[in-house]
């Protein structure tokens, strides 16, 4: 009997219409846990690196995590992977909600698609019965709408449905996969799903998931729940409101948006409006949000309430979480939040990423203003700020006119448009749009995370360590007094020593070595979460979370029966981290790509940045170009990867960056 995982994957060949239930090797769970880890392993094994992201042989994987379907609170993530059409690297994106546990209960850890369906289809997984069904009647339908129609026609209100909208069908590079109150938005995996001809995957399961050591396991779960309750009653003091609690940023709960609207950038991530927030706006925004918000909701088995049911009069109801109420509003320079909720409804039905898409539109309007795009490109476009955005959103998801070029994201669009458009695509790393955030002084820890993160999305890398120093020694003492999550005392000392000004402040403090340690810890927690399917909102993302490096080994051991300690779990993390790095190295990722947007910080320190990267690579056991060395890989049971990189001559290449000092 398998514990934690089901021990089976569902392999679906869309070209041939073939469905197979395949037993998995338990050894892989020991090596990689599950979720992102085993997805990466399969991706490495199955496709050569030269493959186009839309090639039929690319496996599109929908995976649960190792803990999904157990009573571990918040273990509900679906980890979706393929190659990203936008970055051309491995693309992985997670969604919460209810889908992954349902898949586990249906008896599978992953669904792996290969090939392409000649016609639009949807998949119906009902325990042992799996059908590929015609979806021609769903063509062009909204993602939320699609889920409702499918549940209705299956007469299965308890089915969980992940679906794409029109954007995915049209292979828009910012297409998302939507599922209830959640979505896997980043890196264009919705486009890969659409390219394979899959409109939706509905799943219903009524089988058991087994726990190896039930008594120990439930005690650990109860501790996690107790700690969540404690944290909900005891927000972390002396940090900004949005950093005080657990969960993803509580954007559905909070109506006070002074901080975001005055510190995040408006338009094409350029304009800061320092005096935006006033009493009149505050009153209006509160009224709007409370009016459309019907209920605060959670994901499977989680007491938090990060999402909301949103019902705008005259529009169909949808669900929202996190930040998308503001991304469109701010990109379009609209001062009324009402617009944010309205356009997000359309965007959710279309199924597009709420971070990249508004930036693409703001970028296009800047190009128009600059005369790089012309009136002809915008023929028929209304002149008001709101109307403009609706108009362009419609063009992009339909790939009509200029929308066809913009649908590939700012990086590729700028390349195609030329005439200096590249300077306007200024907010990308590795070809992917970043948060609209521009800051003053370089923070060494954030520099490293932005530069080296394989997720290419800061919110999926950061967490655990405070974003800025505390003002007084009392505040620092208070912070570290109950910091049970810190893996080592040295992190507490950094918090105590970190100042706003002077020698021990950014960018030279935390020092290079400290920064590397901090980043490694933050990354580690994300990699573990993504393998276990635990929500980052209860673990790697917020300060002082209920899951951490000290209780995770116990929880994994009690669930699976594996004998795991902190060192063992760290070894698995290193294995998964290096495996994903190797996948991307094979796809061409080098040091030269590890470069945050030029204007992310006003004050840059090229020499320091070089030192930070050098030290980070060294710590990881990578060479100076960010490539895992043979020794590193061998020590992680990844000798086969070292051999492959060697055969390809990757170790003999000239460095991608000529160093000033060299």
């Amino acid at each position, binding site marked *: 009997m398998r514990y934690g995982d089901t021990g089976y994957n569902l392999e679906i060949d869309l070209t041939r219409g073939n469905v197979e239930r395949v037993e998995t090797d338990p050894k892989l769970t020991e090596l990689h846990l599950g979720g992102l880890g085993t997805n990466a392993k399969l991706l490495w094994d199955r496709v050569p690196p030269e493959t186009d992201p839309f090639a039929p042989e690319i496996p599109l994987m929908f995976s649960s995590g190792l803990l999904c379907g157990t009573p571990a609170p918040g273990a509900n993530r679906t980890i979706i992977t393929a190659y990203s059409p936008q970055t051309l690297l491995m693309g992985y994106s997670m969604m919460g909600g209810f889908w992954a546990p349902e898949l586990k209960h249906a008896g599978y850890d992953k669904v792996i698609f290969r090939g392409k369906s000649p016609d639009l289809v949807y998949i119906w997984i009902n325990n042992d019965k799996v059908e590929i069904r015609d979806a021609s009647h769903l063509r062009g339908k909204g993602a939320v709408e699609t889920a409702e129609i499918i549940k209705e026609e299956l007469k299965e209100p308890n089915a969980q449905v992940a679906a794409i909208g029109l954007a995915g069908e049209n292979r828009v590079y910012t297409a998302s996969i939507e599922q209830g109150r959640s979505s896997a938005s980043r890196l264009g995996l919705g486009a890969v799903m659409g390219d394979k001809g899959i409109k939706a995957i509905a799943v219903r399961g009524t089988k058991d998931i087994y726990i190896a050591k039930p008594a120990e396991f439930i005690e650990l779960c109860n501790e996690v729940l107790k700690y969540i309750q404690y944290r909900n009653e005891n927000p972390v003091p002396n940090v900004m409101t949005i950093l005080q609690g657990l969960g993803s940023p509580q954007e559905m709960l909070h109506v006070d948006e002074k901080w975001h609207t005055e510190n995040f950038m408006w338009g094409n991530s350029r304009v800061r409006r320092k005096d935006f927030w006033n009493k009149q706006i505050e009153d209006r925004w509160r009224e709007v949000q409370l009016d459309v918000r019907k*209920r605060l*909701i959670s994901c499977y088995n989680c*007491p938090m309430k990060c999402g909301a049911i949103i019902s705008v009069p005259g529009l169909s109801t949808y*669900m929202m979480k996190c930040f998308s109420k503001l991304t469109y509003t701010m990109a379009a320079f609209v001062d009324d939040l009402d617009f944010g909720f309205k356009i997000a409804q359309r965007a959710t039905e279309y199924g597009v990423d709420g971070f990249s898409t508004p930036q693409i539109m703001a970028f296009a309007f800047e190009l128009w203003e600059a005369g790089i795009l012309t009136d002809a490109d915008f023929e028929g476009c209304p002149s008001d700020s709101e109307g403009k955005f609706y108009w362009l959103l419609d063009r992009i998801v339909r790939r009509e006119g200029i929308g066809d070029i913009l649908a590939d994201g700012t990086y590729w669009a700028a390349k195609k448009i030329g005439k200096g458009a590249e300077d306007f695509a200024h907010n990308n790393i590795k070809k992917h749009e970043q948060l609209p955030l521009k800051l003053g002084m370089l923070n060494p820890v954030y520099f490293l995370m932005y530069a080296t993160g394989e997720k290419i999305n800061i919110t999926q890398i950061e967490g655990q360590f405070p974003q800025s120093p505390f003002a007084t020694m009392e505040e620092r003492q208070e912070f570290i007094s109950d910091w049970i999550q810190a893996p080592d005392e040295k992190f507490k000392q950094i918090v105590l020593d970190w100042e706003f000004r002077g020698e021990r402040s950014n960018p030279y403090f935390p020092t290079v070595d400290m920064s590397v340690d901090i980043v490694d810890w933050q990354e580690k927690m994300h990699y573990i979460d993504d393998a276990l399917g635990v929500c980052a909102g209860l673990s790697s993302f917020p300060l002082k979370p209920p899951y951490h490096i000290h209780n995770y080994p116990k929880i994994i051991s009690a669930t699976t029966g594996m004998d795991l300690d902190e060192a063992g779990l760290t070894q698995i993390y290193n294995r998964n981290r290096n495996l994903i790095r190797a996948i991307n190295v094979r796809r061409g990722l080098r040091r030269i790509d590890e470069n945050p947007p030029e204007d992310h910080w006003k004050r840059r320190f090229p020499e320091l940045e070089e030192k930070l990267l050098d030290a980070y690579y060294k710590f990881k056991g990578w060479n100076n170009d960010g490539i895992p060395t043979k020794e590193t890989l061998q020590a992680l049971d990844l000798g086969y990867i070292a051999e492959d990189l060697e055969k390809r001559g990757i170790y003999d290449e000239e460095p991608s960056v000529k160093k000033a000092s060299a």
Partner: protein
Amino acid sequence: MAEKKKKIIKTIKVDLDKCNGCRACEVICSAFHAEPKYSSNNPARSRIRMIRHPLRDIYVPVYAGEYTSAECMGRDKYIIDGKEYDECGFCRASCPSRDAFKEPDSGLPLKCDMCEDLPEGEKPLCVQWCLNDALIYEEREEEVEEDVKVEDVEIGLASLIDKYGRDKVIDIMARMAEKTKPAA
């Protein structure tokens, strides 16, 4: 006539407005009733069921009540504050008209037992795991006429008889008794 007796009345107050739809109540109920305890999870076996239609803002936790062999003569449908709830949406019966409150493989009826195996003084598990206070446990003492407690096995057997007929069940029971007889 039955004797009057003091009895603890156990109530779970359900506050629909506070429910976030997380299904933690289902999870913990199914895990608690697993054999051995917490050795498995399967919300389809839980004795509380979240009736959820997020887009209609319908979130109703319903507790499994008595088994019934026949469905009601008619169905009820509630509209509250303009929101139309499912047919029989608030009904607790394990009834032939629907799938709710039946074991997924055997189809045997499920019934909330208020976690009777828990040590004295501990609140039912669904209440413990509902951190949003949508489920509130209350106890009070009342004088009631004592009724005969029907055992789970008996309820299960009754439902099998309803499904397959009396003779068939007796037949199979006899056969199984023969098979599982300890060796002489």
